[in-house]
């Protein structure tokens, strides 16, 4: 891939090495992960890693196994084989709720806000696993409102009354209230109008600039890969390509298969 050196300058302005060598502390390491839903094999020996401060995109078409991967990371599915290490700890021993406590936050596909509860209740539920005092939590709530002013405006309304884009902001804000060290985003652009998609990706970029470590899975491969430091392509439960995000988004095969170009 000749595009590689050019990409480095565009994605990382400072001090990135020439080869695909990734720096930073290893936050997430997935090795040979296989997950089945009954007789359906959804993931077949998936390996990937996410390092501190990276935005990693995993792209793949509908049914490729993207959500299954994130749900397995969060403990909603149990793998048949393989390991997941988070901050060098094998998470197999951690129950789903405990994974949140150690700093994994998951924004699920379809937002899944608690529709009958208020916006503010939803945000505070995001901080459920934290033991901080209430005034600390209220300070963080202000920060989220700073990031998403629309949520402050609507804070006393039922979350179900928000538009799709606003619900996505709420779902992200709710996850951020947990003070995560790793943010898992499942198709945040799904079902949104183009303008809102751009807004969601702007938020993702802003979080990336603030140093948040993010693993995003998307069908919207162009937007995700262009933003990502590193990307993986998932096809029918297997990782078929990996590389610098921008390089992947320029890869001819990927373009043909996923970007519809």
């Amino acid at each position, binding site marked *: 891939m000749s595009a590689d050196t050019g990409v480095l300058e565009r994605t990382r302005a400072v001090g990135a090495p020439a080869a695909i060598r990734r720096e930073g502390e290893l936050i997430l390491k997935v090795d040979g992960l296989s997950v089945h839903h009954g007789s359906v094999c959804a993931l077949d020996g998936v390996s990937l890693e996410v390092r501190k401060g990276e935005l990693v995109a995993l792209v793949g078409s509908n049914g490729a196994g993207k959500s299954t991967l994130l749900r397995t990371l*969060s*403990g*909603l599915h149990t793998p048949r084989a393989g390991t997941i290490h988070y901050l060098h700890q094998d998470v197999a021993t951690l*129950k*789903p*709720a*405990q994974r*949140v*406590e150690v700093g994994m*936050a*998951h924004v*699920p596909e379809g937002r*899944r*806000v*608690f*529709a*009958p*509860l208020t916006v503010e*209740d939803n945000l*505070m*539920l*995001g901080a*459920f*696993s934290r033991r901080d005092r209430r005034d600390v939590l209220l300070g963080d709530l202000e920060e989220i409102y700073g990031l998403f002013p629309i949520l402050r405006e609507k804070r006393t309304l039922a979350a179900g009354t928000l538009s799709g884009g606003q619900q996505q902001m709420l779902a992200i804000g*709710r996850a951020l209230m*947990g003070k995560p060290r790793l943010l898992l985003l499942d198709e945040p652009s799904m079902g949104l109008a183009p303008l809102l998609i751009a807004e969601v990706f702007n938020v993702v970029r802003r979080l990336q600039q603030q140093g948040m470590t993010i693993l995003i899975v998307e069908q919207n491969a162009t937007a995700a890969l262009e933003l990502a430091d590193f990307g993986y392509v998932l096809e029918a439960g297997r990782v078929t390509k990996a590389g610098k995000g921008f390089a992947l988004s320029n890869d001819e095969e990927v373009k043909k298969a996923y970007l519809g170009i």
Partner: protein
Amino acid sequence: MTELLQYVITGVTVGSIYGLIALGFVLVYNSSHVINFAQGDLQMVGGMIAVAVLTAGLPLPVAVVVGTLGGAVAGFLLYKAAIEPAGDAGPLPLVVITLGAALVLRGVVELIWGRGYYSLPAFSGDEAIQFLGVTIVPQSLWVLGLTAAVVVVLTYFFNSTKTGKAILATSIDPDAATLMGINTRRMKLLCFGLGGFLGAVAGVAIAPIAFTYSMVGLMLGLKGFVAAVLGGLGNFKGAVIGGLILGVTETMMSGYGASDYKDAIAFLLILVILIFMPRGLLGASGVERV
């Protein structure tokens, strides 16, 4: 007029008991989408334990507290022994499980205390109060007061506490709740315990007015269920209002000479609800889960 007032007061007392049992149904239904048909029997267990503690020579207040806590423990055990192991069995098998649990509770109580009829002394004497020509037994006031207190505390719990909110989140979307770091099983366990506690509060509060015996939970459970459904099954205030409507209607019917048909009211109401909610209650919960 006095007569009518008398029936209303009696009806409200009975209705409060139905309301308390209905609250137990709603709590469990909200958290687990299970209709716990052992709810009436948890109420019976509370009453029986209180009677046993009193018979053992301990003072009445101790009997009351132990009885209500006994109901809570029975609720916890029900969840741990029967509901949790069934996993995601779905609403119908879980209903069957609770019906089975009800039979077990009745059986255990009969083994220990037989089929006899028992009662507790009134909490603060039997001297009736005359008010506007109406007779009110002090225990009625206890029943009303306890019900009101329970409604206030539950409303506060769900509107203003972290655990209350976590239970609501669990009920709305268990997977999303898990992703918040909420241990959803613990929340369900808590609701079964609370449901048992509420049932037992009803059982202990009514034991001085009506007899308690091994089979009492069958009819009371059904009445509580009807009250809960009347109130919309999911709404605390609705559950209590449903209970009051049922209690007052029943008392009126007996009072005005149709006492043979008193119990039929509840079943008539169930029929009406089933006809006008053709998808049924379980159907409604299925929609939420999508």
